[in-house]
């Protein structure tokens, strides 16, 4: 998919929690699927546990949308299994993640104006 075909980033929002969390993790660097799963689980305090089917289903979709791409680089071939696949975020993926964050920020602002700032973060 060329970047011309892509719809504007905000068209993809709101993102599903799984997709947004994957983008957040990949924003830090390349990851393989299992690492993504563990990181997301840790970050959400175990509230979002992605099963393999849902995880790779999301990855499959994100690959097709051009949010992420497969990376050829292997961090350490000795440590790694060939069957692991690494993913990295694309420029478009970053834009989409930003658009999602902006959408959330606006919502939070609106909620703060209506109900006051939340007592707990």
């Amino acid at each position, binding site marked *: 998919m060329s970047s011309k075909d892509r719809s504007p980033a905000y068209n993809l929002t709101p993102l599903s929690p799984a997709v947004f969390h994957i983008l957040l993790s990949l924003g830090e660097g390349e990851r393989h*699927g299992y690492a993504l*799963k563990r990181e997301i689980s840790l970050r959400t305090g175990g509230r979002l546990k*992605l*099963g393999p*089917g849902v995880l*790779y*289903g999301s990855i*499959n979709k994100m690959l097709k949308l051009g949010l992420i791409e497969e990376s050829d680089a292997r961090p350490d071939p000795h440590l790694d*299994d060939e069957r692991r696949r690494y993913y990295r975020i694309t420029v478009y993926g970053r834009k989409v993640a930003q658009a999602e964050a902006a959408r959330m920020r606006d919502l939070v602002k609106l909620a703060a104006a209506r109900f006051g700032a939340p007592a707990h973060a």
Partner: protein
Amino acid sequence: MPDQPASLRLYRWLLKLYPASFREDYAEVLERQFRDELQEPAGTAALCVLWIGLIADMAISVPAQFSTEVAQDARHTLRLWVRRPWHTAFAVLALAIGIGASTGVFSVVNALLLRSLPFQEPGRLAYLSNFFAPHDSAAQFHQWRRQSAYLADTALFEPLDVNLGGAGEWRRAHIAQVSSNFFTLLGTQPVLGTGFTGGDDVDGTGWGPGGRNAVAVIGYGLWQTLFGGDPKSLGSTVRLDGIPLTVVGIAPPGFDYPGNAVVWKPAAYSRGNNGWEVVARLKPGITWPQARQAFAAEADRLWPDRTPLQKVQSPSRITELRDQLAGPTKKASLVLLASVAFVLLIACANVVNLLLARIADRAPELSIRSALGASGARLSQQLLTESVLLGLAAAVAGVLVAFWTTSVVAKLQPSPIASQTYSILDGRVLGFAIATSVLSGLLFGVLPSWYAGRGRTLSARGSSGNRGSGMVREALVAAQVVLTVMLLASSISVGRAFIHLMRMDRGFVPNGLVTVNVSLQGTSHQGVGPSMAYFQEALDRVRRLPGVRSASATEFLPLYSTAFLGGVFLADGKPARATVIPVFSDYFGTMGGRIVAGREFTAAEIQANAPVAVVNERFAAEFGSAAGALGHHVFRQPRTIIGVVKGMDYRNATNDPIGANAGEVFIPSSNPGGFFSAFVVRVDGRPKDRVAMIRDAIQLVDPEVPLFGAETMEKRLDDALARPQFYRTAVFCFASFALLLAVIGIYGVVSYSVAQRTHEMGVRMALGSTPAGLRVGLVRQGLLTIGVAAVLGVAGAALSGRFLENLVDGARPADAATYVATAAAIALIAITGMWVATRPLARLEIVEILRTE
């Protein structure tokens, strides 16, 4: 967690649930991840948690992936369909007709044979045919029914047609007089009121005002029409043939047994009434074989003096009530179901061929996709999706066909009682439709997708990899030809039987005749004198009408097997059997009957009820010859035979074995107006245009007398023949459709094989063969398959022919000439199709072909 080979194996197996594309892309990493998970902290509990999580994950992700891929495949399929609209329309139509017609016919089978009757424990209800339960008096009947060792209870009923209503608003209605235990036996409680109580049925020839039995249970529908569903209408009055009956109960909705009855009244028993029918319930613990044995013994005990011939001609039988209700329709429906199943199979075989050919056409597309990394499984999935979508489209179209089929059948062959109404919207019928669609979808989908998966058709054109596929296609065509020959031969023999029915000499000329029924029961014209006066006045008025050539009346019209007043009486002192039909003067002239000897009744003889009779040839044969019968006497109070006529067809237009070749005795009518009485009028011009005029003229005699059945005799004949005609048309349509499918199939196979073998043909031409020679060779090759199939088809037709008798009376297995003709016709059509299909060979440019190599 320790190594878990069992878990891993299970997970690998479960991964197969994902659709092909996703599985190919991710099976490895999924398995890798699963291994990672297994490495985490050990323990059976942890493993359980892991599996629970995995199963939940699959429950979400498998359908999600499927919907994505199937949507993709579906879009692809739709694009393909748009590109080949005729191809697609043909496939959908072929399947829709197959699926729709079988579903429609199945709805009839379902209603008649599978759906249970709306009675309590319907499987224990029996119908006793050709069995006259003792019925001379109420006491005799009730005493007999209580002593049975094998029947828990038995009830009598007699269906009647009456004038229902009050002055000026008559209508004809089906009613039944029933023994007082009728409702209890069926286990049907009135929704309102008590129904009948023991002793409501009495002795006597009818029912009179104020009597114990002047009560009635009315149908739910009638209750709504007459009383607007008012619960206070219990105790109101309904009039049957002018006699008031008190309503004591309302039957539940949908209850109309027997035969669309709307009113039930208690029986009046009398010696000699042989119109009773018998329904019974088996005693608990008694099996059907036991009941049949006990029943046969009882029938022999009740009539010890029956001759063996009588036992064969009208055997006493105990059958399950549902089978009796389904009656002759049962076998006809099953035969029809078998033929539609054939058509469905042929349609499937054809669609398989079509899809196989299409896959061959799409070889380039499929090989490109294959080269781009699509696996065989992925391509199979694509093709299977195409087939399933085709099946679904066909199922939707098929439901429309099914609705239409069902409504046509319901019109021609109404269900015996309301609760057996044919309906598509029934769980079992819808299940059948879905099962047929899915099964046929698999049937025509699996083979092509399997081939695609194997990559057999993906090889380049002209390679020898298609040999297997070619054989499958040829076998499919052969199967089609077998089924088509069977259907065609059947349709020819059914068609012949029907033509025979149409051309049968009925002893009268139906064209140009108008008929009007009248019933004087319950009117002021009842009785010997008044009824004759009424009929004479009506006939005088009709005869004066413009365009009327002649008019007469009879107490029984031909075509309805209702004139069985006959029985045994004396001819010259010897017992003889015949149907007795009271008629007016000029009856034979008006009907177009043929007088063989003597003359028909004069007006004076009718007026005086002179002791004369006219007999048919069959009856006259008792006296040697037609002329010889004149002057002889019939009946105990002798009537002189003054004329002999060609017999009239009093059967219900089909081959009723009892009515066939029956003796007929016509006598002057003396008390007309019973419920089969009718005026017959021969008119000039179109009889249809005269019907209203004639009916109005008769109505003018007395507006309060109910007239009905005002229609042309041709219409009555058409109605009587509607059923056989429907079967004939149905079988004929199926056969033509099958033939069309087979021709298309043959054409497809040959043109496909020509395309496949272009290269080979080119080489052979280069080696000296002529195009015509090659074409003849190909046709000869194809003909071998067709020939073998035709022989098998003829054998099948000979076997199936026996079942056809159930469809149209008089249908016999076709003769050898028909078989040869059918097989030859198919061979001829097949040769033509093959010759046309090999046309491209004539235009082959050898150089062109060899250059492409």
